[in-house]
């Protein structure tokens, strides 16, 4: 690893492959080339620790701050990228996510789920989520009580599993491997500020890299890969406008558009008909991984209702409302100042009548002191101290009432977009302006799925899900776009008129620039993106490897017929010792 700030100003660096961004995607990609003859330069803006000045390069503006968090939140500009703070939830995209659905404009991937399956297996290894098995039938055959006893539904399946990563910090986990590899060079504190095209705009000839100490370096490579997150891919493409004035890959005004997150939140109040009929907590698989079941809307139901993908989990009641009478939840409310922004968002809001509410929560803690203490002990030992972290707080509510925690697909929408703003950062790059928007179709996905779930719960007699349909839209968008899932800003497809990258994740019409990022996802699925980001990076690695065929057989010693290896060679080997 090299600190770019220690290099000489104006220095030129060259490599076979230049990867921009050392997060989950960039590191996974670089690891694929360890031990090969291919020289890889991995550029990372940050160092090995968080740094406010560097993080500030991510700052930007948001059109409606109620709907989207500031762009320097939920992503980390440092070695390891946002995998240094992620929650670790790993879920593959479903078959339906890859299909062109007539009722979802601009849906459809250029390949199907089967194409990605082998990469999901390898990605699971890198994310340390054990084997790639995401149904409880495979992982817990006949050993689990039903998720909700008596719940029968042809619309929802409780068989699919989310598996949880350690959560793996890719920098910590794989940094040593990259350091040890002779053919991989990691350049820290190196900010790519522009890619330069040849006059015809068909090929990247080089890149400008700057440091916060004022140095400027040049990088040349045969192949460039943007492995930054979904927001920064758009920013870098738009900012690289010396030859193509609208930005690279933006001939059809697509870069930065179709920006998706997920529609997520908690709503409703589920009252069970009988107590203790729910088993919704984390299970541990035989390979030691935390797994959790969820209620997934089947593809049949999606087709029938003509809505997007959707899953729901049983959740504790809303923490801010003290009527749950649960000490541990009230403790979290009281301690919210100490909880990181990215995980405490849902603890804030409703700031009126503060003192009264605070007292009610304090009363909950005192009345439920044993529950609160055992929660804290559990959290401290299984999460704070553990290397494989207990993923999240699951509390059995004192009131026997649950809420529904949902995570739904957001549909591609041309008007939801990021652009370059007017002010620039410390390196002179224009900052991002985020104008995230949702549509009535997105609300409809949740409205209809929740309605169906309520009906199925009622019909199978397990309980009643109460919610107020008239405030549903407000509830759904209460926390705005789900943080950290930045999708679609350089969408993938076969047709250059409707996509930025081709099915190999290469920018249309630029022969050596690739993107390894959720930016290329044409649709967002119900699933969290990281596992798929890593799988796509591995797929890209396999594609790039085809540019570097192994040397001809007659030149490699392994291909010499074994019988002719002969004594002389062995003697030579021993003699060399």
């Amino acid at each position, binding site marked *: 690893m090299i600190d770019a700030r220690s290099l000489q100003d104006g220095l030129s660096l060259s490599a076979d492959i230049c990867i921009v961004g050392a997060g989950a995607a960039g590191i996974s990609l670089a690891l694929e080339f360890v*031990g090969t003859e291919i020289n890889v330069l991995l550029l990372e803006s940050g160092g090995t620790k968080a740094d406010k000045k560097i993080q500030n390069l991510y700052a930007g503006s948001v059109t409606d701050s109620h709907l989207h968090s500031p762009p320097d939140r939920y992503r980390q500009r440092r070695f390891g990228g946002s995998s240094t703070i992620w929650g670790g939830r790993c879920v593959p995209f479903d078959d339906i996510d890859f299909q062109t659905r007539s009722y979802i404009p601009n849906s459809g991937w250029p390949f199907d789920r089967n194409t990605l399956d082998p990469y999901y297996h390898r990605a699971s290894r890198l994310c*340390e989520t054990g084997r790639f098995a995401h149904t409880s039938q495979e992982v817990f055959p006949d050993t689990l009580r039903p998720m909700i006893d008596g719940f029968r539904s042809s619309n929802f399946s409780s068989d699919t599993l989310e598996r949880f990563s*350690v959560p793996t910090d890719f920098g*910590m*986990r*794989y940094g*040593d*491997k990259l350091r*040890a590899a002779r053919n991989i060079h990691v350049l820290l504190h190196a900010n790519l500020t522009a890619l330069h095209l040849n006059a015809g705009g068909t090929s990247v000839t080089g890149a400008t890299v700057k440091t916060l100490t004022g140095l400027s370096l040049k990088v040349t490579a045969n192949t460039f890969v943007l492995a930054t997150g979904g927001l920064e891919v758009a920013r870098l493409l738009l900012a690289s406008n010396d030859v193509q004035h609208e930005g690279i890959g933006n001939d059809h005004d697509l870069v930065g558009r179709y920006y998706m997150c997920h529609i997520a939140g908690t709503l409703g109040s589920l009252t069970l008909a009988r107590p203790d009929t729910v088993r919704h907590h984390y299970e*541990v*698989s*035989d*390979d*030691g*991984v935390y797994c959790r079941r969820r209620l997934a809307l089947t593809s049949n139901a999606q087709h029938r209702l003509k809505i997007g993908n959707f899953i729901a989990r049983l959740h504790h009641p809303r923490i801010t409302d003290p009527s749950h009478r649960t000490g541990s939840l009230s403790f979290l409310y009281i301690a919210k100042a100490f909880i990181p922004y990215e995980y405490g968002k849902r603890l804030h809001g409703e700031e009126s009548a503060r003192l009264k509410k605070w007292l009610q929560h304090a009363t909950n803690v005192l009345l439920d002191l044993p529950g609160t203490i055992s929660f804290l002990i559990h959290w401290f030992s299984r999460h704070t101290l*553990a*290397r*494989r972290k207990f993923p999240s707080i699951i509390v059995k509510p004192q009131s026997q009432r649950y809420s529904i925690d949902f995570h739904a697909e957001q549909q591609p929408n041309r008007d939801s977009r990021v652009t370059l703003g007017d002010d620039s950062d410390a390196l002179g790059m224009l900052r991002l302006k985020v104008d995230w928007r949702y549509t009535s179709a997105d609300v409809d996905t949740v409205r209809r799925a929740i309605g169906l779930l309520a009906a199925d719960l009622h019909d199978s007699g397990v309980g009643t899900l109460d919610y107020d349909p008239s405030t549903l839209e407000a509830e759904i968008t209460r926390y705005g776009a789900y943080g950290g899932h930045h999708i679609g800003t350089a969408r993938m497809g076969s047709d250059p008129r409707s996509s930025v990258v081709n099915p190999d994740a290469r920018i249309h019409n630029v022969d050596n620039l690739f993107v390894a990022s959720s930016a290329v996802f044409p649709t967002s699925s119900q699933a969290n993106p990281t596992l798929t980001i890593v799988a796509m990076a591995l797929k890209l690695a396999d594609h790039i490897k085809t540019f570097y065929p192994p040397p001809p057989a007659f030149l490699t*010693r*392994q291909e010499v017929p*074994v*019988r002719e*290896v002969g*004594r002389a*060679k*062995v*003697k*030579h*080997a*021993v*003699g*060399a*010792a």
Partner: protein
Amino acid sequence: MNKVRVLVLGASGFIGQHVTLALQISGWAIPIAAYHRSRRAIPGIRECSMDATDEAALGQAMLDVDAVVNCVAGGPASIVAGARTLFSIAAKQPVPPRIVYLSTMSVYGTATGEIDESNPLRGDLGEYSSAKVSAERFAKHYPRAVILRPGCVYGPGSSQWSERIASLLISHRLGNLGPAGDGRCNLVYIDDLVAAILQALQRPGIEGQAFNLSVPAPPTWNQYLLLYAQKLGLAPPKPISAARLAIETLLLAPFLKVAGIVKRFVAPAQTIEVQVIPPSLLRLFGQDIVLRSDKAEHMLGLHWTPINEGLTLAAAGFRTTHRA
């Protein structure tokens, strides 16, 4: 047809016992089992007791044998002295016997990546590995030697790679090692090693050659530990932090080593096993080395026992011996 007389040096060890037995039932060989310290008589097998560095005794034992297998374990000094004696005595025989010499993957030292037999022998992993490189040098000057370089030999009864690892897994001292367990685990199932030795004794045209022995596409140590724990019926191994591994190797290992020596004096009869994780083992867990063994596959005609199968047998063996 005359049977081939094979002198097995180190016949009381884990590998030596298996080799002796396999030769006994092979139909084409008569093993002569040579022991130094302990004697574990196998019915119907000729044996002799001697020190492998004792020239006179070795010369006597070699008088009427056709081949020698050397499975002697020992400290660095005795490895070198043993090899010097073995090859010089053998060279003086009227008809020098073929010698199958068991070396180790440690001769490649700290090398990483895919390693075939033509890679240089660095021997830079401490005294054991440099002693084995010196021993191979003696073998090189002997025209009828076949050198085998196995990885980690495991199987039921393997104290180093099956019993020890099982005990450490059970006591939660090993588990998911994170980056420290990303090295590759070049395993050889004991039966495969024995098959290799028997082939090395018989095949024509392989004298002067060295062969790596390891299952192809070896798993990482983390994968191996997880699979082995499953086979042993244990709960999934927990992650072991880097700090804990440092405590194990830097503080606990020297202490346990001393405790083991003290125990030998105080209560020599007691068979309490003291398992140590020395720094060298931890280094191996992290070493990204893959032994290429296709040469042995082709020239010795070997078939590798799949790891899944081998670990099932190793775990079953462990459960049987530790139930009592």
